[in-house]
């Protein structure tokens, strides 16, 4: 069975007085296998962030359901939601969301501290992770003392240190220049090779071409899907993604 199952998601935002209704998601339906690295692409306003927020249990869908390891998210009681999110999900934000009052080390420890893990365990988990993400030397610095790419890598470390079932990333390269982006994507791939399931929202075809599968969202539905062929190179996938994007925007591609 798939690790993540998204069934007929619908999300309607209504304004406070119910006068205006925006349908952000109409009918989103897909699933993600364990160990997969999936990208989600789509135009601005197509509902990507909305989707990710629902997957992260930060928001609730109007209709439809999300299953993580077969367990429905809607079934998690509210008071356990924080703990659930902390233990089972990792989230990487576009604008890092690191706390200026903590060093990078403490920022990364935050979910573990909240889960009341012993200090020795935190240390043991951090060391290899920091090594892999190449931030070992920066751990005692504060967020305002390091570059954007370094911040984002620390944010990734914070997201995966709890060994979450699913790592969610909302335009993680959005605030980075191309070199830092490439480096971060390299990190994502390494993490994925270690068995981490990843769902990443992105605008960039390059970023998308690093993943196993690309979902295109338009008008609130999954409009198109590209899968990496056996032994297909990044460049080849990149070309196909670009092609799909052009067709999408000119409207010649029909799901």
């Amino acid at each position, binding site marked *: 069975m798939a690790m993540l199952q998204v069934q007929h998601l619908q999300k309607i935002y209504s304004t406070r007085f119910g006068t205006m209704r925006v349908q952000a998601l109409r009918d989103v339906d897909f699933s993600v296998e364990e160990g997969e690295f999936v990208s989600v692409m789509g135009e601005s306003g197509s509902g990507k962030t909305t989707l990710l927020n629902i997957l992260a249990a930060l928001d609730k869908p109007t209709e439809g359901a999300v299953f993580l390891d077969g367990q429905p998210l809607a079934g998690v009681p509210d008071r356990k939601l*924080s703990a659930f999110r902390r233990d089972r999900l990792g989230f990487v934000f576009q604008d890092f969301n690191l706390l200026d009052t*903590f060093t990078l080390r403490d920022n990364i420890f935050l979910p573990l501290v909240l889960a009341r893990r012993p200090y020795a365990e935190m240390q043991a988990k951090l060391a290899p992770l920091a090594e892999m993400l190449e931030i070992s030397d920066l751990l005692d610095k*504060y967020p305002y003392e390091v570059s954007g790419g370094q911040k984002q890598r620390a944010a990734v470390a914070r997201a995966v240190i709890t060994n979450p079932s699913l790592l969610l990333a909302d335009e993680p390269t959005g605030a980075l220049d191309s070199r830092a982006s490439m480096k971060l994507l390299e990190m994502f791939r390494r993490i994925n090779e270690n068995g981490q399931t990843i769902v990443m929202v992105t605008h960039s075809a390059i970023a998308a071409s690093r993943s196993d599968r690309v979902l295109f969202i338009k008008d609130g539905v999954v409009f198109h899907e590209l899968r990496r062929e056996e032994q297909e190179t990044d460049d080849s996938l990149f070309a196909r993604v670009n092609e799909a994007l052009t067709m999408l925007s000119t409207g010649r591609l029909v799901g």
Partner: protein
Amino acid sequence: MKAFFPRIAAVNLAGNKTAYLPYLLTSSVCVATFYIMLTFAISPEMARVPYATGAVMLFGFGTVIIAIFCAALLFYANSFLIRRRKKEFGLYSVLGMEKRHVGVVLFFETLYTLAASLILGLIGGTLLSQLLFGALSSLLSFDVVFSISFCDAAAIAACILFGGLFAVIFLYNLLHLYQASPVSLLHGEQTGEREPRASWILTIIGLAALGGGYTIAVVRTNAVTSIPDFFLAVLLVIIGTFCLFTSGSIKFLKALKRSKRFYYKPENFISLSGMLFRMKRNAAGLASICILFTMLLVTVSTTLCLYLGRESSLQQLYPTAVTAFGEASGADDVTEALNTAESIAQENGAELTRSLVFRSGTLVFTEQDGTLVLTQDGDEADHFVYATIVPAEDYAALSGEEVVLEPNEFLLASSSLSQDTVLSLNGTEYRCAGEADALNAVTQTGLAGMDMQFAMIVCRDAESLLTSAGGSLTGFNGYFDVTGGDEAETAFAEAIASSGCAFSYASSRADVAQEWYALYGCFLFLGLFFGALFLMATGLIIYYKQLSEGFDDSTRFAIMQKVGLSPEESRRAIRRQILLVFFLPLAAAALHLVFAYNIICNILLILGVTDRMLFACLCAATFVLCAAVYYLIYRLTSRTYSRLVRA
């Protein structure tokens, strides 16, 4: 178009009302307090209040202090507001509004605030002054109750003072606006969010200052120097408090942080790092709260104690209805004065119920283990005994007892010295042969173990004893009780001072009491008045602290909730943080008060209040009451904080 800037200014004020409303309230209260105090100091009605000269002077003094205090408070509040709004100003510049224009908007904002506070403050002040005048009348026990009218001189002075203050504040803000680049304005709020570095030097200075202040307050028992000592101690404690709050607290928090097991617990993790980060800015606020709160406690409890102890201190100073002094030239003066007193009483149709008349000389001794030795010039003023030497024959006359004394014996009247006291003078040891009961009533009260003790010593050959010790038997004292009430006492005092006998000065207790009570009533009034002002200032500082922390923490908590902090946990962390900030200044203030207790007692002793128990109780009561009000303020303001953080 012309009304564009004034309108923007009005919109700004309305939009920032969570921050501006307390500011407006504070400046209105400042105007009102200043107006009231000045009205009391200069209004013609006040001058007509009997015996109010001393009190009116106190009000004049109070006006000056209030003016200074208001200036400091308004500057503090303004600096907070401006820091909040830097971002807004930066945005204006980025959007293409010239600094000149922002300046014009600022000008109108200042103008509106000034006008509103003057109007509110003067209306409130006028109403309140009526009320307070009534309260004061009853405090001073005036019989005449009349109302106080609007004092235009005080109102004009308030307009000038606060107009000037706001002008300076406006210029200060303008200067800040012009100095800053738009980018730094935009990020203005974030600056200062660097991890603070605690300096060892400051911590050591703080510890030394606080230790020094406490030591002075506790160890120095010298009543004579206690007032300068007190101010020195206050200064040291203020320095110590500021240093320790700013530097010591950071050191302390960092030490806590170093303990991994303690630090990496959710409760401590969040609040410790948050506190540490904002300690630099926070610390000054917390220290101010602590100092203000201590001042509040000291002012209210001391003035209350003085007021409640006013009867007994008057009794101390005037043990009998009429007290007279003069210069004695010989033993005949006593009989002559007694006869004069008798005839004056008769002329006035009154009866003399008590008359103690005696010659005296004063010597200052130092007490060492129960032995009194003559104080040498340059001796430390420690354990001084102020002794009044009274000739045995005078004592015999006034007491009507037969006094049998050996040459090396004396009688003693003292509230603190024991009957085993030995007097060592010119190589001779004098022993105490008994109590001089008849003089007990007119002996000033001192305290054992203190440097200010009083004794009346009756001995044979007082004149030669005094001369040999460098004194002289030239003092002439009279204590009288007469029947016929206050007026008879005053008349008697006046008559005896001008009767031509050895008394040259006399005053009646009734006469002094009015002025005395007026003074102490004003003390209390001022104490409560300032207490209220301090409390308001404390409230304002707390409020602004909560507000700025709420703004800062709301983003922090939002992020943490995304990472998996449950709402319940964040509520707990917030409560914990609030509580810490709440208790720290309060606990420090209580500690200050405990250490100040001794030295304040000494000062009260000089002012004639000997009841230490009364003062201790009043301190405790004041603390409990003020802490309750403080807590209330805290609860109200922390609601603002929680609302901001949870939003």
